């Protein structure tokens, strides 16, 4: 039983801390978000150069041999700095699908581009009618000679405006919500028949609505076995949940720090407002919510390779915890900052917005509570 990092892990943390500390302050981030592109390609290149994009890949795949703990370390720092670049989409999700479900040929074809920072990916899975049910797919892929023809519509594909490649879930058989019949495809975003409408998200990122109209992909675009993709989708999204938990911990840590600091300096009625007992206890509750979130984040990141029921409980449990804690800490950080907390100028609102959106990603508290309850 040990909750400390290895030397390599500590080194990784120092690396990302010093990079973001130097080059990703709040003003820089604001400029990135307001830019036409909405993200920083040069920053992404630096992530690649420093090996951040290689961290969770094995050495055989050209990575640094890390795993979920390395991802957790990075994500917490990305949370602290509200990094908008698509690490989760590209490295955790697409990287995860390729690593755990890809053929050697697919891995060879695509992982170097991820590690090198050349290719950005997005994960097109959600559909308007499907809410958080990963199996609820109206998008279809029909066998067509050796390959497949894909038709359908994907909603709120985060990071898609920046991506060259997409991971797409589609139904190759079965009814609209059957567990069987879900398949996973690699699709070029510039393939004929892919049309996208891009837009900004409230947490300063970009997303697309994507229509697939008779997209032809080859047999080599299929990840894993046809129609058997759902367990892998669940596993990889659980890995993304573990990563988002760490990001949320980073956001909450910063919010708590900022709030305590603000309450120590902001004076009303002649004393720092941090002297008011009600606000003190509120901040203690925020602190406890944070500590409990740290615990669940450790837990889920250590349990991603357990059996399905254990992993599901860990991921659903962590998502519930950060969903509730994120809402509480976010709302109260705004409240305790008063009017200042409401402004776009201060970073407080931005952390709050990001935490709110993290709750939505891959299913909110209600969805995950149900998932937790029904996990065997």
């Amino acid at each position, binding site marked *: 039983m040990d909750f400390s990092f290895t030397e390599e892990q500590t080194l990784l943390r120092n690396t990302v801390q010093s990079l973001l500390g130097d080059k990703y302050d709040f003003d820089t981030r604001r400029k990135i978000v307001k830019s036409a592109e909405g993200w920083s390609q040069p920053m992404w290149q630096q992530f690649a150069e420093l090996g951040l994009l290689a961290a969770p890949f094995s050495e055989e795949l050209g990575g640094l041999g890390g795993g979920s703990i390395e991802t957790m370390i990075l994500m917490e720092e990305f949370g602290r700095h509200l990094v908008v670049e698509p690490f989760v989409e590209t490295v955790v999700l697409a990287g995860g699908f390729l690593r755990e479900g890809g053929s050697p040929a697919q891995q060879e074809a695509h992982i170097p581009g991820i590690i090198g920072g050349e290719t950005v990916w997005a994960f097109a899975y*959600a559909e308007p009618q499907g809410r958080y049910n990963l199996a609820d797919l109206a998008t279809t892929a029909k066998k067509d000679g050796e390959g497949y023809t894909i038709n359908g519509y994907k*909603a709120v594909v985060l990071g898609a405006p920046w991506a060259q490649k997409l991971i797409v879930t589609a139904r190759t058989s079965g009814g609209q919500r059957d567990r069987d019949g879900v398949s996973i495809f690699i699709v070029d975003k510039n393939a004929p028949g892919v049309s996208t409408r891009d837009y900004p998200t*409230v947490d300063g990122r970009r*997303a697309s609505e994507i229509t697939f109209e008779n997209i032809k992909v080859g047999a080599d675009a299929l990840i894993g076995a046809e129609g058997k993709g759902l367990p892998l989708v669940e596993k990889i999204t659980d890995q993304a949940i573990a990563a988002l938990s760490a990001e949320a911990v980073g956001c909450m840590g910063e919010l708590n720090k900022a709030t305590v600091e603000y309450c120590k300096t902001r004076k*009303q009625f002649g004393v720092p407002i941090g002297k008011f007992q009600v606000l003190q206890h509120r901040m203690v509750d925020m602190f406890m919510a944070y500590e409990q979130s740290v615990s669940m984040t450790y837990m889920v990141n250590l349990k991603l390779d357990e059996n399905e029921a254990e992993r599901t409980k860990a991921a659903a449990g962590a998502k519930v915890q950060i969903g509730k804690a994120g809402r509480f800490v976010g709302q109260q950080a705004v*409240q305790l900052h*008063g*009017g200042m907390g*409401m402004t776009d100028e201060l970073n407080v609102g931005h952390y709050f917005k990001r935490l709110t959106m993290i709750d*939505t990603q891959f299913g909110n508290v209600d969805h995950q509570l149900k998932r937790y309850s029904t996990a065997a």
Partner: protein
Amino acid sequence: MDMSFSPQDLAFRDEVRTFIAENYPKDLKSRRTRGEMTKEEILTWHRILYKKGWVVPHWPVEYGGTGWTTTQRYIWNEENARAETQALLPFGLAMVGPVIYTFGNEEQKKRFLPGILSADVWWCQGYSEPGAGSDLAGLKTRAVREGDHYVVNGHKIWTTLAQYADWMFCLVRTDANAKAQEGISFLLIDMKTPGITVRPIITMDGAHEVNEVFLEDVKVPAENLIGEENKGWTYAKFLLGNERSGIAGVSRSKKAIERLKSIATAELVDGSPLLKTDEFSRKVAELEIDLTALEVTELRTLAAESKGAGPGPEASILKIKGTEIQQRITELTLEAVGNYGHVNVPTGDLTGNEFVAGPDYSNGSAQNYFNMRKTSIYGGSNEIQHNIIAKMVLGL
């Protein structure tokens, strides 16, 4: 005991319902927020009511009030909420107007009340300062008397819609040596006076609703002083007391819950309406029950008022519970729209070609949720309201 309306009240209700149906502009109906409206559009309903003579039902008849009973005023508000009419701007009608006719001199009444009624003059509120939020009495803006003028220097903040304002009612410190709540005066300031700068504050939902106002050697004629010098705190408290009533927002919240329920009926979970799931229906039911309780609590306050009891510190309950419910509605609405909660509706200078993803009902859900966080901060934070009840009601 009786919660129903008298026949006279019911007749009155029909009258106002018909009036609204016949006179509320159709093209305003689809516009939900005033952020996207022009200055003139924001005033549409005000101008219609002004013509009808119904713009200030709560004022004394001699100044333009309608002479309605408490119950009639309640019905009037209900019917407006039911029809989702534009909310009127409170700065003139609910805030400075009553201060002027209560504490102003004849000259001031003649000069300022007509513009408030007609909406020809747009007012804004100069209360909060960077160092004086919850502790309003800690304000530092100075007004020094020089001959027939005051010279004002200071820095106001959270000034709603100051970008459109012609005049500001402003709390200033006229006696630097007096204790916190003494030595404050209530000044009316023409926003065109040299030395005034308005700087926008963009809130986290992307809206430009509030501002900072900087006052640098602003010369304000002494005749713009309301009441006595150094007695401004009395007028300020009077104004804040008026501000709190109506803040429960019960009727608007009812409409918002209706809207929430229709969204949750359209949104599907595994093919069935979200509203039919046990979790969500339970949350909506809790919200509705909270609101029902608040509605009766408000009616009890009204009933007491119509028997002559003033709006007491109990009104703080209306503020606290009202804003909690409003915030909860936006929280559940955001929850209801699912993945489309991510979508940002552009604000500011727009080309008109901006793409907004998702069904119409989902647009702005997140921004609305973010925006409503302000309600527990502004107008006396909910913590301050707790303090008020603890002291004034519980005697702690």
